[in-house]
């Protein structure tokens, strides 16, 4: 009986101690992909988009883009990884020597992501550790030095904002004002990187076991939060608000663009993580079914998480609305010296009209102190990103009974989501580097990468660090990814050839490519990607000077500020550095081949002449 592994010309095994690097079973691979794809974006970006683009109606462009763009590209990346059994650099070099730069660009982008993404985990740790107190520190303003009242900055803003901007970040007024490193943040970042090291140091053997936990535990917390969320007072307002479809939003092109980009980034295409994960698969693994499963799980998690988010939103909005009503009620009682039980929360508005009629001069003396309380306005305050996770959610949590427990649960969930995505990011960098055989011992390579990212990441813990973080978040991976995936699709379908790709897939799976995959990959997805790409460029040019939100200490809120010239140059550098890899590598390979060819010709000429 002959034992051999099914091989083709482009197959290769991994060097040295990676020989046994495979997932223990296909379930680990699926869970790793789920853990990577289901990340913070599902919790804080999708609910925001849902709210912005008409609630329930947004699901239509979202699902459409999933089918047209998300699943086929996901399938393609898994196929490449499983076929080539190498990280992104090696895989793309094997597909087409001129386009090995695509892999390089993926690694550069993943590196940027590694640098700033772990800072979010550091913040989650910070909040988690601060939850073990009898009174949550973001629940109340600290008193000032005279003990006469709360700190002014906290008074003008809210306690949760104060805790985030002052105590967590110690943020400066603009990106130009640097400051020292925040020691607490630096310690939390160190912890985050040590944990990442621990999870990856043994390669997929250790990662494979970790993902059982990081992929499943967040769902447990989400379910607990769902039950808690829908039983909160006023939650139904939020859920109703979210699901009321505003169909007119579908007419705007921004809705469709945002749906496409959300699918795109949520699945983590173009970073090289999926290729890296798939490269540890058995050759005949059925990745077709797994691609569909992971994409569906990712999208359903987004919808599920947004139900939780909106019930929390509804609770917070109702709480704020009722607090506002209470304040107005007290103001009326005190100004007009009425008995306490004359005005209740329900008839506040009735009494405002009544008192205005009966005591106009006294009513006028109230002036600006009389607030207007509007539930819709509270619900309309849409927030995304770190603002949602760390400010809005913590504000809602502090008002829940037993808030410490909910706080701990929530931040553990954020940590798991973030860590799961971090694993994918770091593996996307380590796999191609280990294929290049720079350092043979895996634990040294992992340690070096983690140390490097930690040291550079300390820059994000300085006083202006959050502004640099926002810059990386907005520009580091968005545009370059679109370009990378566009080149990927065109390479696979037209340079490598859809026919060859079809044969490879048949080799692995045992059946031919479905017409759905063929049409999507060769036709629909490239067109959609080109459209997205053009839209991004147009939007960027039209947007004028890029701006950011700077925290103003005196006003107690964020103001829109323009980036200084050197920061704009840095943005350009971020975009160019990953995108340039592709043409530069192509040029380099072309020159090398020409030199080789001309060298051969010279030798043949010389032997002939000799």
């Amino acid at each position, binding site marked *: *009986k*002959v*034992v*051999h*592994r099914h*091989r083709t010309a482009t197959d*290769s*095994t991994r*060097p040295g101690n990676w020989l*046994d690097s495979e997932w223990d079973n296909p379930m680990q691979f699926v869970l790793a992909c789920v853990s990577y794809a289901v990340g913070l974006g599902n919790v804080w970006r999708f609910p925001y988009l849902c709210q912005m683009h008409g609630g329930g109606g947004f699901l239509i462009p979202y699902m459409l883009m999933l089918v047209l763009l998300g699943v086929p590209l996901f399938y393609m990346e898994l196929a490449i990884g499983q076929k080539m059994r190498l990280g992104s650099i090696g895989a793309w070099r094997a597909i087409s020597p001129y386009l090995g730069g695509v892999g390089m660009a993926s690694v550069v982008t993943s590196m940027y992501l590694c640098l700033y993404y772990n800072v979010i985990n550091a913040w989650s*740790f*910070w909040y*988690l*550790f*601060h939850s*073990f*107190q009898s009174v949550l520190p973001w629940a109340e303003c*600290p*008193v000032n030095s005279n*003990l*006469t*009242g709360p700190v002014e900055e906290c008074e003008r803003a809210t306690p949760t904002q104060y805790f985030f901007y002052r105590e967590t970040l110690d943020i400066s007024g603009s990106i130009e004002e640097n400051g020292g490193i925040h020691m*607490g943040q630096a*310690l*939390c970042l*160190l*912890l985050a990187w*040590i*944990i990442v*090291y*621990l999870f990856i*140091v*043994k390669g997929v053997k*250790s990662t494979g076991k970790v993902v059982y936990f990081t992929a499943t535990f967040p769902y447990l917390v989400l379910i607990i939060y769902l039950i808690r969320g829908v039983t909160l007072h006023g939650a139904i307002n939020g859920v109703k608000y979210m699901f009321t479809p505003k169909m007119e939003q579908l007419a705007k092109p921004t809705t469709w663009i945002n749906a496409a980009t959300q699918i795109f980034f949520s699945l983590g295409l173009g970073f090289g993580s999926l290729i890296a994960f798939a490269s540890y698969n058995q050759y005949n693994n059925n990745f077709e079914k797994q691609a569909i499963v992971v994409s569906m799980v990712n999208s359903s998690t987004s919808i599920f998480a947004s139900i939780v988010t909106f019930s929390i939103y509804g609770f917070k909005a109702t709480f704020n609305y009722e607090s506002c009503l209470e304040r107005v009620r007290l103001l009326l*009682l*005190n100004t007009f*010296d*009425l*008995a*306490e*039980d004359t005005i209740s929360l329900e008839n506040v508005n009735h009494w405002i009209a009544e008192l205005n009629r009966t005591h106009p001069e006294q009513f006028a003396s109230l002036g600006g102190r009389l607030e207007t309380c509007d539930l819709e306005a509270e619900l309309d305050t849409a927030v995304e990103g770190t603002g949602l996770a760390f400010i809005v959610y913590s504000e809602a949590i502090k008002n829940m009974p037993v808030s410490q427990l909910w706080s701990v649960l929530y931040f553990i969930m954020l940590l798991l989501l973030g860590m799961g995505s971090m694993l994918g990011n770091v593996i996307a960098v380590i796999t191609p580097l280990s294929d290049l055989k720079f350092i043979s011992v895996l*634990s040294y390579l992992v340690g070096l990468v983690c140390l490097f990212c930690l040291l550079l990441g300390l820059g994000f813990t300085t006083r202006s660090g959050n502004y640099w973080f926002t810059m990386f978040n907005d520009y580091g991976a968005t545009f370059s990814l679109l370009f990378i995936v566009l080149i990927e699709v065109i390479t696979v379908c037209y340079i490598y050839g859809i026919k060859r790709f079809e044969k490879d897939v048949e080799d692995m799976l045992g059946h031919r490519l479905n017409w759905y995959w063929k049409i999507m990959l060769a036709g629909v997805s490239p067109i959609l990607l080109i459209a997205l790409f053009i839209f991004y460029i147009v939007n960027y040019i039209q947007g004028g000077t890029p701006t950011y939100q700077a925290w103003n200490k005196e006003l107690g809120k964020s103001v829109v500020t323009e980036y200084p010239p050197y920061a704009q140059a840095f943005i350009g550098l971020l975009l160019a550095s990953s995108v340039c890899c592709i043409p530069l590598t192509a040029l380099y390979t072309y020159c090398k081949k020409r030199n080789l060819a001309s060298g051969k010709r010279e030798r043949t000429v010389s032997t002939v002449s000799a």
Partner: protein
Amino acid sequence: MLVWILFLLCQVGAPALAQDLCQRDAPNGYKVRISLKTALGEDAYEWNQSEMFFFQATMAFAMRRHFQMETYNVDNIILCVQTSRVSFWFVVTSPDNTTMLIPKADVEKAVRMSRHRINNAFLLSDRTLEFLGIYPTLAAPVNPDTPPWLIVFGVVIGAVCAGIIALLVSSLLQKRRKEKGMTEDGQDEEDMQVKGVENGINLDGTYNRGFTDDDRFTKL
């Protein structure tokens, strides 16, 4: 006769005089606001004349406690402008001369000193028994020596570092065991590779060398 007329005048005049001393926005008076229903809900007692008398007595006690020498009485605390909110104004007269008012600052000091006792007398708090103009001193923040978050951080990072050390030590031990295994019968490792060990399961059969990874040995 004259004495009797004078006496009558005094009886009529005194309360009128008192009224002049205590009025809305009196320069030496304070406004008090009481929120019974907010504080006590259903257990709220009714605010009536007896409660007002109790307030006078409490204030007199506060004044006595602060000044310690002068004997203040309920008559020295004059109340007026009562509303259904339950709010009213009060002024304090000196025990020696009922026409002289105690200055605002002194009253404030007395109230601040006995604020806790006054609150408790009425089962109220700083928020529900308000002296408008006298702000309660906030509790000083409790600053523990080690911030609690640092303690939790220390525990977690200790556990993680222990995990890493355990992992590295176990891999080191495994490597040493493997090396010892190799020196004892060095052929076993080679044979295992040749015989095509897949996932640790020894498969019987000849390993077809035509398909081994020759790249390692024949590099260009």
